[in-house]
């Protein structure tokens, strides 16, 4: 299983949902997982994270096992059984 964790304003968008688990399949990537999540929850979350060109929106940090996926292979980053994917839109102001 893969655990998806949601933080901050993103959690509000998802009706307060803190986390959920999705079954893992060989070849799963971060991008595929987000699409699966959208299909399961019927919440258009990928539109908030990815633009029509498949590029990540600035504003939400996506961490796979504590590492920002921009330092891995972005949406093509491979996920493994037991991984934790955290989505966190940080507060920008001071």
């Amino acid at each position, binding site marked *: 299983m893969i655990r998806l964790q949601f933080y901050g304003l993103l959690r509000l968008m998802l009706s307060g949902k803190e986390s959920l688990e999705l079954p893992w399949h060989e070849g799963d990537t971060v991008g595929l997982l987000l699409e699966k999540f959208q299909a399961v929850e019927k919440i258009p979350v990928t539109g908030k994270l990815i633009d029509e060109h498949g590029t990540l929106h*600035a504003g939400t*940090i996506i961490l796979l096992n*504590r590492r920002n996926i921009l330092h891995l292979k972005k949406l093509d980053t491979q996920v493994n059984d037991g991984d934790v994917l955290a989505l966190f839109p940080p507060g920008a*102001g*001071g």
Partner: protein
Amino acid sequence: MIVHDNGVRFSRQLLVWGDEKQNRIAESTLLVAGLGGLGATVSQILARSGVAALHLVDEGTVALSDLHRQSLYGECDIGRKKVLVAEERLKAINANVRIFVHDARIDQKFCIAAEVDLVVDCLDNYNSRFDLYHAVRTGQFFVHGGVQASQGQVLTLVKGESQPLDEIFAGCLQPKGPIPVTPDSVFIIAGLMSNEILQTIFGEPKLLNRFLVIDLVNLSLTFLEV
């Protein structure tokens, strides 16, 4: 002189922290970058707590739109440099704290004075936050805070041991236009930042390599490891 009688001044907090922790506070020099909502309240709490010295960095002037959340300033300060008003107010609160003002924008050339023990990020834009982190010396503690709408986060890093700030926040761009923010969220998050700063001074940081994510709509506090 009552104002210099620290036994009286700190009598209530000494009941909680005791002499050893109070001495650690009294020996600490901190740099507070950004004197907006978070920085104004954080620097005030640190001065009230009895730190040795504060280096304050900001290039801004006080505006009417700051007054709802920036606790060091009033209507009479509009148009004045924040660092100078902050210095006056903090000195009025605790004249024993040495204040060093830096009327400057933090960029790639920014340097942190050697005497600074701990760096506090209360900035309002990612470029300056990343430049500030680059100026931090290896092994130095760095406490980050951010706020937006009714949420925010606090995180402690150690330069050279933790993931760098710009790697954690990679891809985050500054939102266009003014950032929505309320006074209550700023005060709460500044309070939590101050708590973490003091815990770090005591040698007991609670948020080292983990975000505390504060959601004031649902009144929830959650951790996110990094």
